[in-house]
């Protein structure tokens, strides 16, 4: 009962943002075809709008904890139920967004030269006659897992900040950035073996080897989704009202 209610509430909380986001997204091809928006003369292409969706759902994840937590607490909802509610909500939103984006990709490509992010990476394996349907299915699934991961990651980040004190907030803000932008490039630069490991791991994680395999990246997205979900639950299960 409470689970259903919290799912409904969280869905309704994101509904308005979703409508605004897609109103903007769908206005782009409309404005393009009506001549209000121009990509310049020549052979301009629009690519990879899935990343806009991924960033959008990351923000949804970021905004899904604090206010919902307080509201849940006002209504006698346990943290466990709220967390389950978020899992269902983010998976539903990811699913809906993946379907809308698949339609969007199809419509947009009819109007302007457009290539989805998925086609840019894995498009070459869908060149046979029977491929359009499997490309559609593959792209839809890939987007779903990507969005679910971004949404969960946003939730995890907001929970880390919620549970941290001022010093810890600074540490979790600065340390990952230093590691990704300074330590890792430095290690890769001074040690070829490190850069080889990074490249090999990326190829393996995203199925970018000789035989491109999008399902490998879906597995990686799912794995990280589970890791962030476990992390979020551990942070949330004893979260106090602040």
């Amino acid at each position: 009962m409470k689970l259903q209610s919290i799912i409904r509430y969280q869905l309704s909380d994101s509904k308005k943002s979703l409508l605004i986001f897609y109103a903007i997204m769908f206005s782009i091809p409309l404005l393009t075809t009506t001549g209000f928006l121009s990509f310049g003369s020549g052979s301009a292409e629009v690519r990879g709008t899935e990343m806009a969706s991924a960033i959008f759902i990351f923000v949804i994840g970021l905004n899904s904890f604090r206010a919902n937590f307080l509201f849940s607490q006002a209504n006698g909802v346990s943290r466990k139920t709220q967390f389950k509610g978020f899992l269902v909500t983010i998976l539903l939103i990811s699913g809906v967004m993946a379907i809308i984006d698949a339609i969007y990709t199809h419509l947009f490509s009819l109007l302007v030269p457009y290539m989805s992010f998925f086609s840019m990476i894995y498009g070459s394996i869908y060149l046979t006659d029977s491929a359009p349907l499997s490309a559609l299915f593959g792209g839809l699934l890939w987007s779903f897992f990507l969005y679910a991961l971004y949404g969960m990651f946003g939730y995890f980040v907001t929970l880390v900040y919620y549970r941290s004190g001022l010093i810890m907030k600074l540490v979790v803000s600065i340390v990952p950035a230093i590691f990704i932008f300074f330590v890792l490039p430095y290690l890769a630069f001074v040690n070829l073996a490190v850069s080889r490991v990074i490249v090999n791991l990326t190829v393996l994680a995203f199925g970018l080897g000789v035989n491109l395999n999008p399902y490998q990246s879906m597995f990686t997205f799912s794995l990280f989704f589970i890791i962030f979900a476990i992390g979020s639950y551990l942070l949330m299960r004893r979260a106090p009202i602040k």
Partner: protein
Amino acid sequence: MNQIEIKGITKVFGETTALKNVTLTIEPNKIYGLLGRNGAGKTTLLNLMTNKIFPTSGEILIDGQNVLENDQALSQIYCIAETNLYPENMKVKSAFDWTKKFYPDFDRGYADMLAHKFGLDTSKKIKSLSAGYNSIFKMIIALSCQVKILLLDEPVLGLDANHRDLFYKELLSNYSAHPKTIIISTHLIEEAADLLEDVIIIKEGEVLLVDQVENLLSKGYTLSGVASLVDEYIKDKNVLAQSSFGGLKTAYLLDESARVNLPQGLEISKLDLQQMFIHLTNV
């Protein structure tokens, strides 16, 4: 049954111990007053009872069920918190609609009727409500939820005298129609005293006293007269406090035998709940 058992609850925040080994049994369908000075641990206790925070040790049971992460136990209880837990951009009527989804017994008609009585515009956003109307909004939800246990933390904060009077009347009429366990934490003791059946006084995180209001009031007296007479009379009595002015003295007593064999020259008068609370917690 709407019994609440608080067993050995201790809550520590950093270096501050807010509650120390509190053990209490809240009996069903009674109105309790939870009294204590600022920082005594009242809000902490209410927050623990609704699992808004976690105890350092001990447990709280509602009808034998631990409240920790227990949707079933938590759905029997509603707490008016001092802070606003509702989204600020939500409209009052929307908050009523959502509450109905979480508390299926929420009486929407009754909520609308109370909103009309208190002059609360339900089309307003929560963030635009004044402090008084914010209290009214939360109080209406609490009364309309029809839960078995109501926890009211400073329910009349910011309310004018007329609205406070109306609130006390509505609370009593709601209680008469649907008996429930109510715990009111308030600093306006004099106003709420007539509502309360039992009182729990907390001091510095420890339970100082749990008693029936009637019983407590029957023990409380103020004794005044010549200092030597007063001193002689109170030497074997339970004295809460004393004050002297010139050769006169006033003693505040919590003792059933205080009225027996009262010597001439001494005057005795009853202590009300607020005076008793002040003297009990001032020491």
